[in-house]
Every structure is written in C-alpha cells, then in structure tokens.
C-alpha cells in the first residue's frame, strides 16, 4: 500500500492523471468533430466516412500521448526524485505550472487516477488476449476444408479482387455465421451447411464481403482499434467512434459486394437469410436490440438513405459545448503558460481542423436546410468562439468564418447538388463535384452532367433534364406539406423512378382487406398508398412501394414493413411524474378495447442498445395499458409490441424519451 502511495506521488503518476483528465474533453471534442463531419458529408460514400472515422480514432491516442508528453515535460521526471508525501508543499510543481485555481481536492485525487487507469487497461487487454486466443482456437478446432469446388471459386474471386495472399475456406461446426480470421494467413470460416443450404450466388456474395475485408486490411485495423479501445476504455466517445468505424467498415464491404454482383436486393436477402439460419442455435439471445443489420439492409434496399438521424449534429453540439466548458474551466484565464498550455490543444487539433476544412469546405453544412443554412452557420461560428470581440481571432476562428462565408457563396451550387441532382448523381460524380475549386468549373460540370444523360445528344433539348425538373416540380406541388415535396419519401421515389404505373390509394385509411401473403383477413389501417412500378432498372419487375401516414398529417413515409400501416400499431405516450419517492416515468399505451385479448410487451434500452427494463402485460377489454418505470436520468428508447392473441395481428412502435 505504501509503495502505491509513494508511486502515486511521483510526477509520472501526476502527469498521467492530468493526461487522463484532459482526455475527457479531448475525446469529446474529437467525437464532436467526427459527428459534425459525418453530418456535413452525409451523402459521401461509406469509404470516405470510414476514412474520417478511422482518422479521428487514431487521433485519440495521439492526443492522449501528446498531452501526456506535454504534462511530463512541464513537470520533468527527476531521476530518483525524493518521495514527497507531505501534501500541499509536495505539489508545488503542479502549482507552478498554472493549475493553482484547480480545487485542492482534485489535486489530491488526481494522481490516484493513474493506478486505477492502469488496472483498467490491464483488465481490458487481458480480456482481449483471452478473446484472441479463443479466436485462434476457432480456426483449428472443429473445422474441415471446404469442398474443392468452393475453394477454387474462392481462389478465382481472390484473383478477381487482386488479393495476393491465399485465402483458405474452411467449414466450421462452431461458427454460426461466416467469419474471417487472421491477417497473414486469412481463413474464412463457413458454418456447416451454409455451402449446401444457400444458392451459389448467395455464397459468392458472402465470400466477396469477407474477401473485401481482407483486401482492405480490416483485420489489422480492427486489432489496432481494440488496442485503442482498451487504452482509453473509460471514455464513451472512444467507444462511439469505434462503433462508427465498425459500422462504416461493413458498409464499405457491402458496397463492394453490390459493385461486383450488382444485385443489392439479392444481397440484402442473403444477409437476412443468414441471420435467420443462425437463430435456432443454442443460446437464443432475446436481448440484442443493437446490431446494425437492419440498418445495413435498409441501406442496401433504398439508397440514398431516407432520413438521416438528427441525433448526430445535436450530439455534436452538446459534446462541443460541454468540452468547451470543461476546457475553459480547466484552463484558467491568465497569461499563456508558454510550454504546455497551448501545445496539446493546437497540436492535436491541427490535423483534425485541416481534415474538417478539407471535407467541409466544398461541402455545404446542414444540407437539409438548404437556403437558410449559411447565415445560421455564420452565427454559430461566432457564438462558438468564446470571446469574439476582446481577443484577436485565432487561426481556427478565422478559418471557421472563412468557411461560413464560402458556404454562403456556394448556395446555388449547393442547391443544385443537394436538391436538383440529389437523387440521380452518382457517388463518383458527387465527390468529383465537391473537389471542384471555382464556380466556372462547377458550371461546366453541371452542363456536362446533363449532357451525359441527354438521350438525344444532337438536339438542343435535353429531355432527361426537363423530365428531371418536371418531376421535382411535381413532387413539390403534390407531396410537400410542411417539408418541401422533393424531400419527402414519395418525392424521392417519384423523382428517382418517375411516375408509378399504378397507385393504389387508401388515403382515408379505414378497413382494408389484407392480401393473403400478409396473413389475410380484414384490418384497420392508417392512410396508405401503394405504388406499383412494372419495372425498375436494377431492382426488378413489379416493384411495389408502400407509403403510410400514421400521423394523418399528409406526410407519407416509405415503409418496408407491411404491418406498419396496421392501426393496431400502438401509440405510446410518455409522462414524467414527480413523486416524493423520486421521478417516475409513466408509459401509457392506448388499446383497442373491442379487439379481444392483447399481449403488450415493452423494452426500455439506452441509446447504446443496453436493455434496462422489460415488461409484459396481457389486456382484455381495457382501454389502455399503463406501466410505471423508475429510471435514472438519461436518454432511453422504448419499443412496444402489441399482438392480438386471437388473430395474431401485431403492431410495433418505438419512441425515444429523456428522463430529467
């Protein structure tokens, strides 16, 4: 114990403590930068997003290291420094470097962070090592080589994807999904029965996905990622960024599959089939609500993404505010301390800022608010700088203002990119457009863009362009309601695929005779429309797209789920009750009393997918189902499912809420 106490009072422990503490805001700031950049470059390809996320994840340990080095050089480790046990005088080195206003309590606690942190890192790395060993055994135990024809097919795919390393295809009796293991001698493990149970094309899709991981050196990146996670395990921002990297990585590989096979829907179906096949395996985990499979499948089925979450920028803003506040509190306003006051901040933010500038400069911020966005951005840029008038502008503030100004100038081009051509421009064209430097180049690009699509290049008219603008005008006229029509789901589909061949309109809702494939029977529905296209290139024949309007506001949204139009889909009301015993959350689910016995089940989870509470009720003839929950403050997601026991008709709804 004494030895720990002695060690704790060494300058190294002290410096570590400071670095750990500073990383709280550094990590938050880096995550905020990522959230902002991702929001700004939303339409960019998964590869760009992946690159940005990786860069920021790498910046995290660098920021930590730089801060550590800087705080070490501020209190140099004296060789064989006498152990200074007496509290306040022993900390003079700390006081010297400009940290006097930090409360005494914090200074006493600070060095103790280091041993705790070391313990945590040790635990995480030990766990990681155990996992790594388990994975190594997985490639040796219970495996056999795949039938020759499949190994040959894998080799051919390797050659097509220009992979130099040989990839071994094995069947494993332990894997329940196809997995890739190893970097130097990569192995793809297929669950037993997968090779015979799926069609050749489906297996090829999976193989390409795994080979894409090899091609992109993902295994190595993933290992370093786990290394960073363990090192900075205490910061949620690290985990969040890491999760973004993982998700985008899968998107990259998905894109590669679609690129090579050309059949996004078939691939999405393959993923779904795979997930279904694994389910009867031993532990049927009920819990997991997370997992990004649904997102990936949606992404594959309907690109571009329907409505990006609005949580990203909000989160970024909050994180940025918090980190600014922490930074201001930690750095007392005083004459700059030459050595280590500014260095960590500037050092670590410069590459990031450059990255932001590189990505954001030609890209409009806040795409969705096309016309009004620019002035808002300017205002925010000014508000974000703490003392705009009293101090000369720092480099970063000036950059931010320049950026805002540039964005203002680009409005017409931004409108063209994000509105006129939003749904028809390819990813390559979009990134090419964003790289352009001058307005003249952009004009030329736009001209060429339309010319490339002109079905009759010889004539003065460009039928394609005219049709495109007609569709936008039609969408704005017919589907807009609060939101501009081109931005609605119906608008997007109309602009992308043109007028449907047939519209089945149930805009008034009411009774609906369900087709046999959906279970048959009569059901009461929300207003909905079905659009039928006889043929859509790249998707197939007889495509039916369903839009529903659950709020009866005239704002139809596209749905993949034929049961979503069901009026049985529960509505959820959340009330916060303040009782003497503390805050409680009341969940009220109005029910259809005449419908017979209903099973109601609910699940409360945190935004990161951890389940906090579940409940189940059965109700017969009651008008509503209520449930009181005692939850600590925070953000939650509630998913409620209602099922009619007699008819089997079910509905599902989810909502997010905050407990204060």
């Amino acid at each position: 114990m004494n030895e720990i106490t002695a060690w704790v009072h060494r300058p190294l422990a002290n410096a570590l403590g400071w670095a750990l503490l500073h990383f709280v805001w550094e990590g938050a700031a880096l995550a905020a930068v990522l959230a902002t950049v991702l929001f700004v470059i939303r339409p960019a390809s998964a590869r760009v997003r992946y690159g940005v996320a990786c860069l920021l994840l790498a910046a995290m340990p660098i920021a930590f290291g730089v801060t550590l080095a800087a705080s070490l050089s501020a209190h140099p480790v004296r060789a064989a420094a006498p152990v200074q046990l007496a509290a306040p005088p022993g900390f003079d080195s700390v006081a010297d470097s400009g940290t006097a206003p930090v409360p005494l309590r914090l200074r006493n606690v600070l060095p103790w962070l280091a041993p705790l942190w070391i313990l945590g890192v040790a635990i995480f790395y030990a766990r990681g090592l155990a996992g790594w060993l388990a994975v190594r055994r997985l490639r040796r135990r219970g495996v056999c080589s795949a039938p020759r024809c499949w190994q040959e097919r894998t080799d051919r795919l390797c050659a097509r994807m220009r992979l130099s390393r040989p990839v071994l295809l094995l069947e494993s009796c332990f894997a329940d999904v196809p997995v890739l293991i190893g970097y130097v001698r990569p192995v793809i493990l297929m669950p037993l029965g997968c090779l015979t149970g799926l069609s050749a094309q489906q297996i090829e899709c999976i193989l390409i996905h795994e080979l894409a991981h090899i091609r992109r050196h993902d295994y190595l990146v993933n290992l370093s990622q786990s290394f960073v996670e363990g090192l900075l395990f205490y910061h949620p921002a690290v985990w969040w960024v890491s999760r973004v990297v993982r998700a985008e990585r899968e998107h990259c590989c998905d894109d590669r599959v679609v690129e090579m096979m050309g059949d996004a829907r078939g691939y999405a179906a393959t993923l779904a089939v795979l997930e279904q096949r694994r389910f009867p395996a031993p532990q049927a985990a009920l819990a997991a609500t997370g997992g990004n499979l649904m997102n990936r499948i949606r992404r594959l089925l309907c690109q571009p993404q329907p409505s990006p979450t609005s949580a990203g920028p909000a989160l970024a803003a909050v994180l940025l505010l918090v980190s600014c506040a922490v930074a201001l509190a930690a750095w007392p306003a005083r004459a700059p301390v030459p050595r280590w006051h500014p260095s960590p901040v500037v050092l670590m933010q410069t590459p990031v800022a450059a990255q932001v500038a590189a990505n954001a400069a030609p890209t409009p911020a806040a795409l969705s608010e096309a016309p009004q966005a620019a002035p808002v951005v300017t205002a925010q840029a000014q508000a974000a700088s703490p003392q705009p008038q009293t101090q000369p502008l720092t480099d970063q503030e000036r950059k931010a203002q320049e950026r805002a100004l540039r964005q203002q100038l680009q409005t017409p081009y931004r409108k063209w990119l994000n509105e006129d051509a939003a749904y028809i421009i390819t990813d390559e064209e979009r990134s090419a457009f964003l790289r352009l430097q001058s307005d003249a180049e952009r004009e030329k690009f736009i001209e060429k863009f339309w010319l490339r699509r002109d079905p009759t290049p010889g004539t003065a008219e460009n039928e394609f362009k005219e049709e495109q603008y007609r569709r936008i005008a039609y969408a704005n006229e017919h589907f807009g309601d609060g939101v501009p029509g081109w931005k609605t789901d119906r608008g997007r589909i109309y602009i992308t695929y043109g007028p449907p061949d047939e519209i089945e309109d149930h805009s008034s809702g009411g009774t609906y005779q369900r087709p046999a494939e959906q279970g048959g029977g009569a059901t009461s529905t929300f207003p909905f429309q079905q659009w039928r296209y006889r043929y859509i290139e790249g998707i197939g024949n007889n495509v039916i797209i369903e839009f529903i309007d659950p709020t009866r506001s005239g704002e139809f949204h596209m749905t993949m789920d034929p049961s979503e139009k069901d009026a049985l889909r529960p509505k959820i009301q959340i009330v916060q009750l303040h009782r003497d015993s503390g805050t409680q959350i009341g969940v009220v689910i109005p029910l259809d009393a005449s419908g017979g016995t209903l099973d109601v089940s609910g699940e409360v989870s945190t935004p990161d997918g951890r389940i906090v509470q579940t409940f189940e009720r059965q109700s017969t003839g009651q008008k509503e189902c209520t449930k009181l929950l005692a939850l600590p403050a925070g953000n939650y997601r509630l998913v409620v499912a209602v099922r009619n026991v007699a008819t089997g008709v079910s509905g599902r709804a989810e909502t997010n809420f905050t407990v204060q």
Partner: protein
Amino acid sequence: MPAPPHQPPRPTDAELEILTVLWSRGPSTVRDVHEAIARRKPTQYTTVLKMLQIMAEKGLVRRDEKQRAHIYAASRPQEWTQRQLAGDLLQRAFGGSAKSLILGALSAKKASREELAELRKLLEEFERGAS
C-alpha cells in the same frame, strides 16, 4: 452392429475434425473422409481408418456395412455435440471478449425476435417483388 453407448464421450480435437467432415459431406466412405482431411494436412489413409473404427466403438459414428465400402455417418447431430462443447469455445469466441476480434458479414450479436420478424417480412416482400 453393437448399439452405441448411451452417451458418447466428448470427441477429441482430431475426432471433431472427422465429425465435421461427416456433418459437412453427409455419410461418407473412409476414402472421402481421408480426401477431405488430407487437403489440410498430410494424413495417412490408415490413420483415418483407425480413427473411424475407434470412433465407431465409442459411439461417435455409425457404420453402415451393407456395401463393400463401409459408410460412416455421425451418430449425433452437430447441434448436440456443439452443445456438449459449447461451454468453453463457443461462448468465448462468440459471446464474450472475442466478439470484436472477428470480422464477418453479420455481427457476432444475434438479432432479436422482432428484428427477425421484420427480416422475414422483408424477405417475403423481396420474393414477391422478384417473382
């Protein structure tokens, strides 16, 4: 044919490999099993034959002697053995710390029932669209 013992013992690693071949290819002759195993590491035909005989005695595989070339089949389904061995490997590799160390088309985390229901609907819709 002697009736297999009530509860076959846990297979060793080498036996598990042979079982995997049998699960993958279905009932096979010794030659088939040898062919599959020899592709990964050099193994003598007689070694495989000997092992299969031992496994038949242990009750891990069944031997069909109706034809000239004896045909061997796993006596228990894959799931059964998997459950027998599940404690260590499966849990550690797919449930715990190693989850983030493997890459795959699907996450190591299983989908929930609701998600599966949604998936099923999606597939039905897809099949309708494709037909």
